[in-house]
């Protein structure tokens, strides 16, 4: 994973609430056996017409969308299926952060393992971002702060361990592999065995 310290980008806004992972990455794209290339399929059912042509009024199809790294979405983003194809698609498209008032647990976990920051803001900040699509925001991972062009600066919750992994580009598997002695010990001394 690449180090992620700082994001400075204009936003794309999808105001719908409860956007589920079936919308982010429809099931028919889950036949992929790799992580790459899923950006094409991101929000496919909202993004393309029946004949596959991009729908001009969908936010991700607007000029310059491919350069934007920050998605602002309605409350409770990423609910439903555990498919990691959802964050893979978002990252492959170019996103590095999603801003909402709440994230589904599995989506949040998956995002943090792929260099995508699930950034929770209060309702006022959220409303301002929804009403001002395309503004340039600044996200500093080390201080866990979001700065808006209206002068607002907000801290956001970020688990210390996940933050460390983002900043250093660490993959959490390495941490677990280093626990091998403790894991073996646990297996030997536990009261019952599966």
């Amino acid at each position, binding site marked *: 994973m690449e180090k992620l310290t700082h994001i400075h980008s204009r936003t794309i806004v999808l105001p719908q609430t*409860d956007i589920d992972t079936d919308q982010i990455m429809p*099931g028919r794209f889950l036949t992929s056996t790799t992580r790459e290339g899923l950006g094409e399929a991101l929000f496919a*059912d909202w993004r393309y017409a029946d004949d596959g042509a991009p729908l001009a009024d969908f936010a991700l199809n607007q000029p310059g969308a491919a350069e934007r790294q920050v998605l602002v979405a309605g409350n409770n983003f990423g*609910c439903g299926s*555990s498919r*990691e194809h959802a964050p893979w698609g978002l990252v492959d498209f170019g996103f590095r952060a999603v801003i909402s008032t709440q994230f589904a647990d599995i989506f949040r976990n998956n995002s943090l393992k792929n260099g995508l920051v699930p950034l929770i803001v209060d309702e006022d900040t959220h409303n301002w971002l929804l009403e001002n699509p395309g503004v340039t925001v600044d996200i500093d991972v080390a201080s866990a702060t979001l700065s808006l062009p209206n002068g607002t600066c907000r801290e956001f919750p970020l688990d210390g361990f996940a933050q460390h992994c983002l900043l250093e580009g660490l993959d959490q598997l390495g941490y677990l592999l280093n626990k091998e002695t403790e894991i073996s010990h646990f297996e030997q001394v536990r009261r019952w065995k599966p």
Partner: protein
Amino acid sequence: MSGKSLFEKVWEDHLVSAETPSNPAVLYIDLHLAHEVTTPQAFTLLREQGLPVRRPDLTLATLDHSTPTVPVGSLQDLDVLSEPAQAAQIRQMAKNCADFGIELHGFGSDQRGIVHVIGPEIGATQPGKTIVCGDSHSSTHGAFGALAFGIGSTEVGHVLATQCLLQRKPMSMAINFNGRLPVGVTAKDIILATIGEIGVNGGTGHVIEYRGNVISNLSMEERMTICNMTIEAGARAGMMAPDNTTVEFLAGRPQAPVGADWDSAVTRWLSLPSDDDAGFDREIDIDVTNLQPMVTFGTNPGMVVPVTDPVPDGNGEPSFRKALDYMGLESGQPMQQTSVDIVFVGSCTNSRLPDLRTTARVLKGRKVADSVRMLVVPGSEIIKQQAEAEGLHEIFLAAGAEWREAGCSMCLGMNGDNLQPGQLCVSTSNRNFEGRQGIGGRTVLASPETAAASAVNGHITDPRTML
């Protein structure tokens, strides 16, 4: 000091190391369920890093999501039965399992089926275990008093390589169900009504324990239906106290302990229920006495009403309007006037033998309406055999329904069993998201009773009129 909840007991029993402010807990996993869709990238990670699977013996693998629901004799048959991408994914799973020494319950195995159906069926799902799968409906296994939750593919790789996960301890919530469940109202209606009540994000960050006399009176299959849809309320996991019903269900299953091991396991299992003075971060009471059969009308499982109600109006809220437009429904229109194109009985929510028996009870001596295509898809090969031994398939076929091979099928439409754009399906599955069952397809979630009654009438129907 207050006592411990079921969740806390299982959590603490699996801590390789406890969490600290700077590091998450290392949680040991007793059972890892694997299927073809969410594991390929994890096996790739293992190959790249030259790592073995640490405990193949604690890994249970099957084929369910992209598998055809017509008979498959061998992997070669997929050339004609499946699209190339699906066939490749299934073959990749077979190769990954072979390369890493994992037993695959694949084609030809009696024990193949939907991953959340076969775990309990073969007795691998047991009280007090930690169970994960790259699949959010892992919550199903919580019905046994296991701590079971869905994970992403990166975490699948973590479990394959280390049998552990890095986790922060979730919060806890108790939902107490009291009162008397009316006739014709099912476990599916209980969970749909509950999601309607607390919302699709009502459980976020929490492990729910379902409690109360209503739960203790349910069969294991009914309990699984409820725990299955826990994720639809956004919760991390759902759990229920193990009791004699749990023990009786597991007795004699292929992977259940035997002899002295069985006795000590049962003693341990029955010590797991929450202590009387256990505390929860949140507590909710739901009285089921006036509950009705429930159906969804929108594009998430929280958009749900009694089948006898009209479509609500949602106060003109934009995402509500968008959902009704997608569904082709109008506020105020009685749900029961909605005509139906497809009926799907299946999925890890409602594809077990009792679900098929109820479906058959409604269909017996009746016909599926001419305008309706009905699919009945058993959750596993074993269920298929049992249903056939009871002659249920003859009732389905005589009524004009299709009787298919086990798998996820139209629950997520990955295997070719799809809705066409605009078709409306009454489905016993768990998700009515836009396009879930096929691009442009419309899903109404309901119990098997409601699904079967709707198939007969060709429009959404209160099953109590046919019991």
